[in-house]
């Protein structure tokens, strides 16, 4: 299968600080790549780099190829036409990512109108209501004119997802879509995303700091830390045979059924300098940044 999105040796810096170093990733069509990392690992800026929402602030080298075209060399008007139509994004904070003074139906409709200005009022409304249905928002027609503050956090996240999928994008970038939600709602949102992926044949880049969340939706998992890709493998390989010490530490930080009740929760105490170690294919499709001797 061909890769829909291919990041090739991407390096990003904000003035003097390098935030992503020599990152290469590929996502095949109709699969999900989970990108895991702690705060400051460069996972979110990678997402913003793909949609080129960082344009004026960051210097970038390398290439980001989407369906054959290099996004970094695309002119900004062509990029704007891709955003929201082919490449859609779901943001982290459902509380702040919605405009407080615009009815939610209108906000979802924005996504349609931006790319299909020729559509009639009714066609837009129908598309919006269909998207609201798809994300299982109750009573779409009645709640079309309600404002964001009249919805709960989980419902707002559904609205954000509806905004992202209303144009049937090929690539969906979900940047910590469940971090601001409680665990029950988190589960519902993850199920929704998995369902939408099946139904619409989405390719997904799922970003999270939570390995457990990533494991529920991803086909492949990539682990990042301090702008470096440490390990990338299929979900099964990451969980069964983690090669990098950091990945193991991440896995160990989550309590399991076997963790003794009275032992303190594990904290992540990992220090390592991996910049010098090259990323190598250790097993079939399993890349890791580990020393030769493993």
């Amino acid at each position, binding site marked *: 299968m061909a890769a829909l999105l291919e990041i090739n040796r991407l390096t990003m810096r904000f003035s003097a600080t390098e935030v992503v170093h020599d990152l290469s990733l590929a996502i095949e069509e109709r699969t999900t790549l989970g990108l895991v990392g702690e705060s400051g690992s460069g996972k979110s800026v990678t997402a913003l780099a793909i949609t080129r929402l960082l344009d004026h602030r960051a210097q970038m080298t390398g290439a980001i190829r989407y369906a054959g075209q290099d996004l970094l060399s695309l002119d900004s008007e062509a990029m704007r036409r891709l955003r929201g139509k082919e490449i859609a994004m779901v943001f982290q*904070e459902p509380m702040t990512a919605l405009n407080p003074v615009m009815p939610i139906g209108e906000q979802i409709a924005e996504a349609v109108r931006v790319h299909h200005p020729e559509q009639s009022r009714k066609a837009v409304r129908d598309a919006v209501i269909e998207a609201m249905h798809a994300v299982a928002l109750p009573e779409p027609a009645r709640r079309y004119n309600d404002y964001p503050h*009249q919805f709960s956090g989980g419902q707002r996240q559904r609205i954000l997802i509806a905004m992202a999928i209303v144009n049937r994008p090929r690539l969906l970038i979900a940047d910590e879509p469940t971090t601001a939600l409680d665990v029950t709602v988190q589960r519902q949102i993850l199920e929704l995303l998995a369902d939408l992926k099946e139904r619409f044949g989405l390719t997904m880049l799922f970003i999270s700091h939570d390995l457990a969340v990533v494991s529920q939706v991803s086909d492949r998992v990539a682990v990042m830390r301090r702008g470096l890709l440490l390990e990338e493998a299929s979900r099964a390989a990451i969980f069964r045979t983690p090669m990098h010490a950091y990945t193991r530490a991440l896995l160990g930080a989550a309590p399991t059924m076997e963790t003794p009740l009275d032992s303190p929760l594990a904290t992540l105490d990992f220090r390592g300098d991996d910049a010098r170690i090259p990323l190598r294919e250790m097993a079939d499709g399993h890349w890791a940044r580990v020393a030769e001797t493993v």
Partner: protein
Amino acid sequence: MSFSGWGLVYRSQWNREKTEGAFISIVDSQGNSRYETLNYLQMHYFLRQQLKTQPLAALGLCLIGTFLLAGAFAPWISPSNPSAIDLPHRLAAPSAMHWLGADELGRDIFSRLIYGARLSLTVAFSVVACSLVLGTTIGGIAGLYGGVLDMMLNVLVMNAFLSLPGILLAISFVAFLGPGLINLILALSIGGWVGYARLVRAQVLAVREREFVEAARALGASDLRIFFRHILPNIVQPLIVQSAIGMAGAVLAEATLSFLGLGVPPPTPSWGAMLNDARSHLFDAPHLVIFPALAVMFCVLAFNFIGDALRDYLDPRTRMSVGL
């Protein structure tokens, strides 16, 4: 927690059948603000409460309403033609025939005040509209794009205009292009837009960093669309307040220019021009001065009352942070 202010009612979609609709912003004692939905009856309750606790706003609204009606229906209301000369009654004191007296040509002062309201309000609304459009455009560009463009517009253009007294700018503009209604409006707008531009710029700088703007950008919205559909509705509150207070300034500025003979040329009645005509009769016929002066004063006061009240309604925190 206490109710401390009225929030934005952006679209009047509430009605008697639908219980949800308009909403208000509530600020609790910790300074956290949140939105609360109001139904139709609650809306009216709060509106009445607010008018009760803000008697000056109610007064201002009544005054402006009166001026507006007077201006709009001037030909039907005024007891006589404002330009009709009646020399036998020149400088007449207020009487049954001339309610507020007559000026040095015997023209009825009450009628001239009514027609003057028409001019003053036309100028005030036009000046504020022009300034608002110009200021929002330039301030919006500066705030949205930032960087070098912002430097040019903010530091060079806006500061240059701010360093010149607005009234002086207006005087020289009219002196160059000659008096007239359009020139008067343009002259006053030229000094007036800077305030709006600065306000819009500052507000845009704050709002454009909010996540929903980034989300709109991620949808593929163009800059123009982001500005008009997403940013502008979020900054409209301070603009409304500034506009109301700007009206007062415009009324005053129009009177000033007319007083100096740079307003709309006679015989069009104007409060400022009436004051100028009355100068030489300050002691022998004081009513010639008092009534136009009162008209200007009440009009300016009314707009200021409304502006202040709107500030309270729309953002209760402003007053606290400004220390009023």
